[in-house]
Every structure is written in C-alpha cells, then in structure tokens.
C-alpha cells in the first residue's frame, strides 16, 4: 500500500511517500505564495523522482498551515499530531518534541504510543521561528543556513535584548556597525532564538527523550543552546528533521487507508 503525507508550511512544503512501513522518498521545496501550488509542486517533484503517478497513491493526508487546501489529499491532520506521530515512529523513546517551524514554534508532549498529550505554541509573536531567524540573518548579511556553523566560531557572543525579531534588526545593524565579529552576532541570534523556544518548552515541562524537528533543527547553534539549557542530548532522527511532519501525515494516511481497506 502506497501512501503520502504532504506538509505545507509557511516557508517550505514537504512531501513523503511510504510503502507500508518503508519510506520511499521525501522532498522539500520553498513555499510558493499559493499553498495549492506549493502542494502540487513538491508532490509532482517527488512522484517524478520515484517514478510514481498520483493514481498509485492509495491515500494522502495533508498537514501544516495549508493542510485544508492540498488538492489531492483525502484528509488532513493537524501538524501537532503529525509531528508527534512522525517523531515517535522514528524514535520510540521520544516524549518531548520541539518543532521549530517557519512561522511557529511548538513544544509537544507525546505518550508512549505517540499520541499528543499536551502542547504549547507561539500565537501572537513570531520570535523563535524560522522566519525570525531568516530576518535576523538578513540583517547580519548572511544566509540563514550559515548561522549555525558561523556561530561555532564565536569567541565573545553578543547578547541581544529585543524580543521582537523585527526590532532586533536595529540591534544587529548597530553591532555590525560597531564592527562586532559576525560569528559573535550569529551566536547572539541563535541564543535569543533558543531563549524564545525554551520559554515554551519549560512551560510545557521537559520529559526525556527530547528531539527537535522542523527547519530550526538544522541550525546547530540553536540546537546546542537548547541542549545546554535543558541539560540533555537530543535524539538523532534517521531522516531529515524537516520532513517529520510529512512522515506523520503519511502514517495517518496509512491508518486511514487501512480502515477503508478493512471496511471494503
């Protein structure tokens, strides 16, 4: 049975295809301004690579910000449930999942079966999200993908004060202007991002094992700040941490397809 999960986020769109318990492949693209277009492009790209057609997919579940409008999805599930499900399927010992997405940041508690028990997420402010990181990287004049490694070279990290990532631009520009080392500023950017995320995680309460999913998981600077503050080492996922929501969606698709199958 071939199933798909399609996670349409604010910044990136992800697709995963599973054949029973085996992952056939995944794809990530930058989101287009239109969620339908993002869903179609990412899935087209993946199916083409796997040499599959839409008709080969028995069931598809959409998730993420654009989950309601994935045109070929049979159903949709919230990204919180999908991250919980995907992460527990990949690493069964996980109990706390930090999902650092493009425009949201969540701390999710799952039970032994991977079901979501509780969560916290940002609602009013985008500080601590991928988009905030991107904006701050832009103010520093580096690509967001470089922030993590750059910060490892820091010798005297700066401490940023502004909670708003848009206002932080002033602080960053001022530091650049004063001639501060960009590695030190990058470390400050990662630190303030981690502090925002920690706020949610501590509010939820930490239970081990802990893992981080979403694009922010790729920033080694933010990840090590979080590990240090939470006094734990995060689990290693065997797949790209950015596709875990899509993996979860595909697993829900398998459940739903199985139910349909047994009814028939």
């Amino acid at each position, binding site marked *: 049975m071939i199933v798909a999960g399609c996670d349409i986020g604010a910044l990136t769109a992800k697709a995963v295809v599973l054949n029973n318990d085996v992952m056939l492949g995944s794809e990530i693209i930058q989101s287009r*301004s239109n969620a339908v277009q993002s869903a179609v492009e990412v899935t087209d790209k993946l199916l083409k690579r796997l040499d599959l057609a839409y008709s080969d997919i028995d069931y598809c579940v959409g998730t993420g910000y654009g989950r309601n409008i994935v045109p070929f999805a049979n159903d949709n599930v919230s990204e919180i449930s999908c991250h919980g499900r995907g992460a527990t399927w990949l690493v069964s010992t996980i109990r706390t999942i930090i999902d650092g997405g493009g425009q949201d940041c969540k701390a999710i508690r799952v039970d032994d079966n991977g079901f979501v028990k509780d969560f916290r997420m940002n609602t009013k402010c*985008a500080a601590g999200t991928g988009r905030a990181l991107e904006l701050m990287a832009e103010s520093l004049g580096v690509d967001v993908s470089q922030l993590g490694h750059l910060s490892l070279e820091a010798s005297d990290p700066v401490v940023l004060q502004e909670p708003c990532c*848009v*206002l932080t631009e*002033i602080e960053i*520009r001022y530091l650049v*202007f004063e001639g501060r080392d960009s590695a030190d500023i990058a470390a400050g950017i990662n630190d303030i991002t981690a502090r925002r995320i920690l706020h949610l995680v501590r509010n939820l309460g930490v239970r081990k094992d802990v893992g981080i999913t979403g694009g922010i998981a790729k920033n080694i600077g933010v990840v090590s700040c979080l590990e240090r503050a939470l006094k734990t080492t995060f689990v290693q996922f065997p797949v790209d941490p950015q596709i875990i929501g899509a993996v979860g969606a595909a697993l829900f698709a398998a459940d739903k397809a199985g139910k349909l199958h047994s009814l028939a």
Partner: protein
Amino acid sequence: MIYAGCDLGIVSAKAAIIQNSDIRAFEILPYKSHPKQAAVDVMDKALAKVGLSREQIDSCLSTGFGKNAVSYANGAVPSLVCLHRAIRELNPSIRTVIDVGGHSFAAFNIDDNGRIAATAVTDKCAAGTGKFVDVMANALEKPVEELSQASLSSNNPIPITNQCVIFAESEVISHINNGCDRLDIFAGIASAVAAKIVGLVKRIDVNEEVAMIGGVAKNSIVVRDLERKLGLRFANLGVDCQVIGALGAALIAKDERESASQ
C-alpha cells in the same frame, strides 16, 4: 552664522542647515548599509543645494541611532531633546507629539511651560511602526507612497487581525491569494497601524495641538485614520516631518554657540 544638524537613523540619514533661525536646506537620504558614509553624503547634498561647503558650518550636532558615527559633528544630542527643541521653534502651541519612524514609535507631551511632561515609547514589538507598513507594502508589491494615496478611496478595508509583522505578512499574502483588492488590504493595514499608535498615545494625555512626525506621518491613509480615531486634526508644522530631529540638532548647535559667546 550657519548651523547644521544630522539625524542618522536606522534606514535614513537626515540633514538640516539653518542660518540664524531660518531653514536654508534639508535633505533625506535612505541608505541600506554604511551609515557613516550616508551621514557624510546627506550633509554634502544639503550643502550643495545652497552653495555652501562644510567649512562654512559654524557648528553641527548629531542625533538619532547613529549619532556617535557622524564624523563631522561637534557633539551628539538625544533624539527626544532635538524633537522637543524643533517643535518649540516651529509651533509653540503643540502639546502632544507623536513620532512614528522606521523602527521607533514614541509620543510625548509638552506642558504650558514648554517642558516635556510625559513620554511613552514603543512596545517590545514592531507593530505600528514604519517597518510594519514597509513589509506589508512589499508583500503587496507596490510602493508605500502609491498605496497610501490610492487606498484613501477604499470603502471596504479588510481587517488585519495579527499584530506581529511576520504573521500579518502571511495574513496579507492569504488575502492576496483569496483575490482581495490590494487597496482594500492596504486600507486594513493602515487601520491596524493607526489603532496600534492610538493605543500607545492613549498612555499619555492627548492635548491639542497635536503634531505627528517621523516617516509614517507621510502616509496619508494612516494619518487620516489616526485623525479619525483621535477625533482631531494634526497641526501643520510647515516643514518635512522627517527632518524635525535634524532641525532640532541644528537649533541646539545654535543655542550652544550663542550661550557660549555671551
């Protein structure tokens, strides 16, 4: 005697040149990087307008975010002090000043004796600033100036519910994708910005006359919405609302020289 002021902001440099108390020239120069160079260029441009050279300036003071980076200045003065000085010069009956710039957002009262009575400064959030407006205009793919004029005729402003710049940007993009009219979207943005500014201004007394300054004061629709929400009309200061800080710095340069020579 010739005096000058340079207001080096986050996104633009402003210069003002005065002779006695008359404004001879002013200049606004938006910049992306190299604030030190922008400070030099903006003053040279202003000087060139009136055929003066830097050597002819008797004294120059700087203000704004980059006040310590203005190489030719004889000293630096805080923004609030400069704004207050210029407002007193331009219109002594002003009792409330609302300053909305690119990243800043402040309001203050002036009492009957001409002293600063109360101040309110920006929240820990960029909602309501020029940056908020710029990001939304960018999402709408049209210049702010064009949108702020054209959207005055909108009869159907679309409410923007998110305060956060980043969330509001997504909200705007969703509205565009849903086929909403761009001018109706911008009218909604202006209304949200005006509401945020009113929230801050209400923390102090709103005593007439009221002046609005800073880059956002050039945004016709935000100004209109703000005037409606506050139930008043802003006073006309007779000069470009973005050079008030630079003008104040020049006036203080003059005051200092005059008091030193007495």
